[in-house]
């Protein structure tokens, strides 16, 4: 992690002599290779489009001639969806164009109807507007996408054809044109001289084909996005659903929290105060006739008041930890780590205070993850890293425990994930069996004040 400066020093050590500008040839070769890869990918994209065109044409004619074939539409829709998803993935990895899935999310478990489940699923797929945009794509893509995908390969083919024309005029191959004349694109090939001209042109075509291949691949990706990306409506609908879910989660959590606080106060501090009031009355009565007993009662009450204070302290700590209020997230996590029995190492790089609700959510997320490491992972050491980059708070908690954590088995991580979701935060877990476990959390947030973390000032 800290090898940055060292490796840079090592590089400058070999000096400018050790580093050579890549030659023109080398650069050309790299570009050509890149073109070739893009060209082959274009061809790979093209081949399923041919099949798709046939399938679509066949389906349309079948439905036109015999209406009952319409029953096959769901099967077709499912197949097209699979192909569309493949194209989305390839657009991301080959063309660098990100295309999210536009479909309605699968229904939550338990909400599907008991009977008529097949028909319900069918209706759901058919009423999804994204399905119909898929179908439109399936009709148009073999033509538009096909041209975009195949154009570089076709150009190179044309070039290859041109370069072999001189062979015929040198008598090294059979005559291709019976009358000895023919057009190679715009060059009339009538003799050896024009054949050589055609060959030169052919080399040009090959170069052109290779040069445009990466660009065409990107263009293909962008074309794919036109019909396969979610519409503004679908994006909004998805967002609304997310917000509704996270809001109801937030409300539930809040209500549960309030209930817990109420119960804690009722059973703890409140009960102790009542007991103290009663004991005070008793002490008042006893103070004349039995001072010793009154004194004992008073001592007992001092104990009780200390206990009540302790309980209130713990309660407040659970609502809003003092160090978090005083110093912000960085020091609060340091304090948290100090209180935990593991060997800890905290690095925090935060340019200022975060918005208060985010700070609190982040704190309790780290706290929960840390508690997990203590309880379940048998860890000895833990590393916590907090940093603020590009408008996002990134937190990672790594422990050297036995790993194998699984949010599905309810180790509290699901709850953390849900609470972070209220702030559009995400949680990623990497916990192979045998460890180490790494939990990464990310929260988009703004800085609320430019005050720097105070720790360096006082440490």
């Amino acid at each position, binding site marked *: 992690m800290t090898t940055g400066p060292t490796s840079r020093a090592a590089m400058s050590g070999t000096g400018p002599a050790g580093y050579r500008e890549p030659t023109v040839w080398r650069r050309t070769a790299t570009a050509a290779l890149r073109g070739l890869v893009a060209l082959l990918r274009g061809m790979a994209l093209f081949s399923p489009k041919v099949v798709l065109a046939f399938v679509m044409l066949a389906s349309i004619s079948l439905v036109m001639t015999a209406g009952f074939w319409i029953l096959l539409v769901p099967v077709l829709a499912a197949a097209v969806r699979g192909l569309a998803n493949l194209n989305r993935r390839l657009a991301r990895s080959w063309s660098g164009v990100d295309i999210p899935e536009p479909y309605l999310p699968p229904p939550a478990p338990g909400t599907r109807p008991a009977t008529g489940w097949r028909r319900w699923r069918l209706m759901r797929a058919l009423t999804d507007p994204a399905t119909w945009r898929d179908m439109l794509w399936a009709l148009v893509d073999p033509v538009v996408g096909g041209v975009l995908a195949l154009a570089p390969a076709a150009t190179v083919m044309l070039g290859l054809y041109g370069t072999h024309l001189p062979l015929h005029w040198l008598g090294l191959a059979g005559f291709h044109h019976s009358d000895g004349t023919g057009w190679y694109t715009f060059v009339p090939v009538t003799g050896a001289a024009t054949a050589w001209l055609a060959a030169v042109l052919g080399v040009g075509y090959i170069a052109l084909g290779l040069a445009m291949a990466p660009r065409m691949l990107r263009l293909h990706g962008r074309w794919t996005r036109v019909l396969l990306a979610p519409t503004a409506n679908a994006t909004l609908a998805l967002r609304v659903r997310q917000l509704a879910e996270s809001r109801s989660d937030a409300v539930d959590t809040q209500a549960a929290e309030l209930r817990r606080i109420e119960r804690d106060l009722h059973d703890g501090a409140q009960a102790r105060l009542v007991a103290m009031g009663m004991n005070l009355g008793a002490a008042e009565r006893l103070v004349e006739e039995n001072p010793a007993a009154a004194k004992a009662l008073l001592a007992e009450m*001092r104990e009780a008041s200390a206990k009540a204070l302790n309980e209130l302290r713990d309660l407040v700590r659970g609502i809003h930890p003092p160090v978090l209020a*005083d110093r912000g997230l960085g020091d609060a996590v340091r304090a948290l780590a100090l*209180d935990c029995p593991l060997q800890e190492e905290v690095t925090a790089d935060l340019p200022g205070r975060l918005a208060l609700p985010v700070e609190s959510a982040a704190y309790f997320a780290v706290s929960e993850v840390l508690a997990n490491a203590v309880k379940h992972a048998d860890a000895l050491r833990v590393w916590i890293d907090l940093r603020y980059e590009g408008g996002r708070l990134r937190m990672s908690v790594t422990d050297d425990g036995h790993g194998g954590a699984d949010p599905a088995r309810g180790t509290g991580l699901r709850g953390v994930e849900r609470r972070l979701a209220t702030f559009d935060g995400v949680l990623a877990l990497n916990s192979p069996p045998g460890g180490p476990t790494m939990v990464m959390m990310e929260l988009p947030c703004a800085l609320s004040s430019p005050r720097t973390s105070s720790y360096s000032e*006082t440490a």
Partner: protein
Amino acid sequence: MRVVLAEDLFLLRDGLIRLLEAYGFEIVAAVDNAPELLRALLGERPDVAVVDVRLPPSFTDEGLRAALRARQQVPGLPVLVLSQYVEQLYARELLADGIGGVGYLLKDRVFNADQFLDALRRVATGGTAMDPEVIAKLLARNATPLARLTGREREVLELMAEGRSNTAIAQRLHVSDGAVAKHTTSIFAKLDLPPSDDDNRRVLAVLAYLNG
């Protein structure tokens, strides 16, 4: 003994003034915010200061910061910090300079006037007074190396880390001074700490060890 007092709650400030005056302390300044505290600490150079962590204007840890800043300028200026909460982080910061003359106690310890005044006097003479809660957490952090100690040695270590002298520990545990001295020698040997006759320096060594 001249005392500077910083506490923003009127009732508590008033109570502390009365308590301290009743025991012959002289209150040279009683303030309710951090800037005035810093001014009083640097201007009055009291024998000891009693400081609430949370003070106006920001109601965060202003009191602690003011105390730390004053100690930067006047090394060893005795400060007893009071708080509703004890945090290991803050205890560390107070102990970081390794000079002593610091205390960090929960506010409820004031209820027990004798112990509170004892702690205050210890801090004024360059000793330390750490809240048992801080010490308990420090001991929990060092569970593995401390497993070598006997139960009695652990008790002695706990009281020593709170800042008590051998005599005070002996009284507390109802044993002789000599017995406590034997225990401390054994503790220092087991923890690989250099032996020292000076009470305060010994306490600081123990705290530095526990803070690792």
